[in-house]
């Protein structure tokens, strides 16, 4: 194994660790929301600093590898993809932290009716499934699995669009529990962003393995 191979292997291990931590953040904020577990919500907020530190370490590793090894071809694509995957995972964790803050902000359990109307549970299920698929796709360099992430993102987009209609209906009904549904809609928005970020991760996995650019509907796809 060359020095570059060894560095790339370590970088991949760091990114797998990042995937694992971010997945745990999203999973914990779901539980904090569903069970109104404020301790868990605070844990998610506290964990964010570990994620930030790991993000900085991965950025620094990538910078060093670019400076020291002048990588080309698949090595270059991997490092470029690693930088973007790292950024997207950190932002996913930011969104998990944001959800945890909405839980604390409400200060009481979210109305079950609202949870059901906004399909929050389904939104979490799909978003966590996407993170899992992206992680597996990254570990096993499985571009078919990475592409599955894109289909699941469509589900999140559909639920997100319905959320706007639900909110409009609630406003028209002049419901008294406005903070419940406004915070819930904000959570839906954050989960929709998680979907977008995970989709970006999938695109980067395909970029480094197949050298295809999928983002923005690029003609290169």
């Amino acid at each position, binding site marked *: 194994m060359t020095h570059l191979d060894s560095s790339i292997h370590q970088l991949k291990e760091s990114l797998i660790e990042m995937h694992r931590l971010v997945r745990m953040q999203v999973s914990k904020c779901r539980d904090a929301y569903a069970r109104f577990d404020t301790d868990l919500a605070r844990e998610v907020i506290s964990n964010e600093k570990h994620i930030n530190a790991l993000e900085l370490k991965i950025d620094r590793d990538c910078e060093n590898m670019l400076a020291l090894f*002048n*990588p*080309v071809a*698949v090595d*270059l694509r991997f490092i470029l993809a690693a930088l973007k995957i790292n950024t997207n995972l950190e932002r996913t964790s930011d969104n998990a932290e944001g959800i945890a803050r909405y839980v604390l902000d409400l200060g009481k359990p979210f109305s079950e009716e609202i949870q059901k109307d906004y399909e929050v549970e389904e939104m979490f299920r799909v978003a966590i499934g996407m993170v899992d698929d992206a992680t597996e796709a990254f570990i096993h360099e499985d571009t078919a699995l990475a592409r599955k992430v894109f289909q699941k993102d469509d589900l999140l987009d559909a639920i997100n669009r319905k959320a706007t209609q639900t909110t409009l209906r609630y406003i028209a009904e002049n419901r008294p529990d406005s903070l419940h549904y406004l915070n819930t809609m904000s959570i839906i928005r954050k989960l929709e962003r998680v979907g977008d970020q995970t989709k970006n991760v999938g695109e980067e996995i395909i970029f480094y393995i197949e050298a295809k650019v999928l983002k923005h509907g690029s003609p290169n796809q």
Partner: protein
Amino acid sequence: MIESMVSANSGNAILNSDKQHMDYKIKTKKVDVFYGDNHVIKGVSMDILPNSVTAFIGPSGCGKSTFLRLLNRMNDYIEGFRKDGEILIDDQDIYDRRVRVEELRKKVGMVFQKPNPFPKTIYENVVYGMRIQGINKKEVLDEVVERSLISAALWDEVKDDLKKSALALSGGQQQRLCIARALATEPSVLLMDEPASALDPISTAKIEELIYKLKEQYTIIIVTHNMQQAGRVSDNTGFFYMGDLVEYGPTKDIFTNPQNQRTQNYITGRFG
């Protein structure tokens, strides 16, 4: 260029050009080279655009320097040398019997790995080719020296010392002097065989900058073992391996998404 390359009594056939493919400066068609029984270049076809820099890369012994030297017939006198296939420059077969090799070499200049100035003054090094052609008029030679040294980015450093021995120059300056000497005969193609491999990083940077500027006027082909140099200076790259041209295309494609696994293995340092 070809009219001057062909001997005066050549027939018109050699002047006929294939208009359809005039876009390419150099075309090689199924070129094979043998040294005795040793098959060193295997069916290489390659088109090279004018005013571009093309890099040949590959491990030692892959045939890249042999292929480069084919382009100004420097292999002709190697024992057992035999070539099949066509090599066209400006649509003219440079191996046509009517082509005069010395005229070809005026038009296809060569710069070698190690700076090889003659033990003469800077001035005499530059005008050496002109004097061989019988040109001795001072005004003409003065103009050639200034033009060539300016083109080789050496004029400002030596203009007050033209009578100084070329051997007193630094390695990087000597190499630029050799480039000036190659430019003096007004070639349209410049071949460079690892022109910076014996130089320090600053001299290397100057040569690379020079290559970038020279391509406005010349078609340049460079053999290099330095992957980063190929990436920095060339528009197109050809990867040779065991006499085969394995992959040839835009440098940015070769270095980001090579299509052949052998190319990828070589440029990423995982060869063999």
